[in-house]
């Protein structure tokens, strides 16, 4: 029973983690919360569905979906890039609050664009392949959950290697540490900031497509709740810290599932429980589980 809830929680948590990475990476380089990220996630779901429907006459469902998720990866990355270029970069030199307000504006704009131009109802997301159930020591896991776990953990692993083992990754870390010095060292800071949006957007887009496949329906306002949860996960792990976001997402997903699954009537209380634990952790570790305490940059 607990193991079964762990499987549910891990699946949910790995989706949270994928979204949380976008929040945390952008915060790392810009000290800004990108509230439009939840709509990037939504756009990934819509791009993948629209592409899938276009391709289905010519390709088999699983091939079509493979193309669709790759395009969701690229399309959402591109959208994040456009948002950064037009809504945040012009405000780079203004106060810390200005880009935040701009982000909320972009979020509302994208939601309503989805509402007006695509659909104001939920769209059914097709079941791309036959779902198989595997029994393993009393725990049931289905092929969708395995797919989500493999894709999200795989992407997180690749991101981790990219940030820690490549020149570009070093540039990202340098920019996050001290952008002024980084630019003096010849690092194109603007390009690096754009790159973090690109990476975060791509992961968010994939999370959106996986979310659609897993729950079977998508909607223009689907990003709001997962966005809030993922942001919470990023704070829990230590905002600005990449492994922290991954762990934060997984911990939050597992906590929610255990609360809803083990306590009678727990589904009403799961958010209360999960967020109370978050508050407790932040009271004792304001920098989050993995964050390092850094003095305020001026």
């Amino acid at each position, binding site marked *: *029973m607990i193991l*079964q*809830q762990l499987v*549910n*929680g891990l*699946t*949910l948590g790995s989706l949270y983690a994928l979204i949380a990475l976008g929040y945390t990476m952008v915060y790392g380089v810009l000290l800004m919360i990108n509230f439009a990220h939840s709509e990037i996630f939504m756009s990934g779901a819509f791009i993948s569905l629209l592409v899938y429907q276009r391709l289905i006459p010519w390709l088999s469902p699983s091939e079509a979906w493979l193309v669709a998720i790759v395009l969701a990866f690229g399309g959402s990355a591109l959208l994040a890039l456009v948002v950064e270029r037009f809504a945040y970069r012009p405000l780079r030199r203004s106060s810390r609050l200005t880009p935040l307000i701009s982000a909320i504006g972009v979020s509302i704009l994208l939601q309503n664009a989805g*509402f007006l131009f695509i659909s*104001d*109802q*939920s*769209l*059914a997301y097709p*079941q791309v392949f036959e*779902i198989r*159930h595997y029994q393993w020591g009393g725990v*049931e896991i*289905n092929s969708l959950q395995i797919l989500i776990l493999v894709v999200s953990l795989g992407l997180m692993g690749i991101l981790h290697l990219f940030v820690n083992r490549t020149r570009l990754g070093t540039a990202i870390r340098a920019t996050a540490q001290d952008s002024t010095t980084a630019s003096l060292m010849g690092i194109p800071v603007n390009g690096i900031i754009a790159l973090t949006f690109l990476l975060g957007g791509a992961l968010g887009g994939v999370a959106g497509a996986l*979310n659609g496949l897993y*729950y*079977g*329906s998508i909607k223009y306002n*689907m990003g*709001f*709740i997962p966005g809030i949860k993922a942001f919470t996960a990023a704070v829990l792990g230590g905002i600005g810290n990449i492994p922290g976001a991954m762990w934060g997402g997984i911990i939050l997903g597992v906590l*929610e*599932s*255990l*609360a*809803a*699954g*083990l306590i*009678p*009537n*727990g*589904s*009403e209380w*799961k*958010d209360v429980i999960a967020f109370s634990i978050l508050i407790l952790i932040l009271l004792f570790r304001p920098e989050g589980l993995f964050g390092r305490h850094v003095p305020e940059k001026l």
Partner: protein
Amino acid sequence: MKKVFCGLLALAILAGCGPKEKVARIAVALPLTGDIAALGQGLKRACTLALEESAQNRHSTGFRVEIKTFDDRSDPKEAVDVANRIVSDASVVAVIGHFNSGCSLPASLVYARHHLAMISPAASNPKLTLQQLDPSWRYPKTIFRVNTTDDIQGSYAGEFAVKTLKARRACIIHDKTAYGQGVAEEFRKRLEALGGTALSFDGVNVADKDFNALLTRLHELHPQMIYFGGDYAGGGLIVRQARGVGEKAPMVLSEANFDPEFLRVAGAAAEGCYVTFLGSPTSLLPSARRFVDAYRARYPGVEVKAYDGYGYEAMAIVLSLIEKVGPDRVKILAALPSVAYQGVLGETRFDQKGDTLNHRITLFQVKDGQFQPVK
């Protein structure tokens, strides 16, 4: 020169206020955006159709009837705001609305305070009209509805579970709204009265998408059936995920799931699920056939939604009263209790509370991706 210009201007203004036809407005307060906008939009179309049809066969009576639509976004707070805007417009003679019980309850107090009649085409929580029989109710009877209520629907489902499905151990889920929780409680009452047991009674958040944890826990309880009270946003996902965690027990859902959207969200998992419906859908009533044809002719390519017949009926009743007593708030309110209207839903007459005496419930089962009435 300046004087002449001013004079001309004054004339122009006066000319604009010549003798004009009086306008009587019927306010239609529904969720036109948000989660269940599709249902609200359908009702709005039905109301418009009723008005257009009556306008064709009405002679000049010195006033014009118009619809004024308001959007409550299925949000109780918004509904109260809408209600306050409606009562402050003196040209409004009656209200059709609201859709949700959660919106209708607080809004109904605003209308009662201003002695404005409200006819709900869909809100099904019994409390809505019952509050008028309370000794502390200081207003005239202003609340009426043309659809059947949850106490009838919930107990019907409870009876069906025990007597037809032979299920004595049931898990109950609701969406914590006035509607969903209300109907789930009625179901539980009837189930326990007939000797069944409720293994669990859980509320879920409307905005949630992941019910796997809850359903895994319910699966361990080995229920013989699962009941859900709430609308299709939750219902579709719950059905889909229940089948996903391997739960094979039959499921019965409340009438807000009677919508193509439910079938889309639940997908193949919907197969075999039961949905109770208040009254008879227009597709089954001989008296409604003409309405469905007119609706299709007026809105080609649009599917007739579950409640559209009720919206049409509520509008037709108000229009017939305007015909009879004139466009006047007080007179319409006085005439409503004695209404006996033959229309799309069969005969509508109101009881002591203001509820329709039409207590029909239809049970549907999903077969081959379609709602099929169960005989």
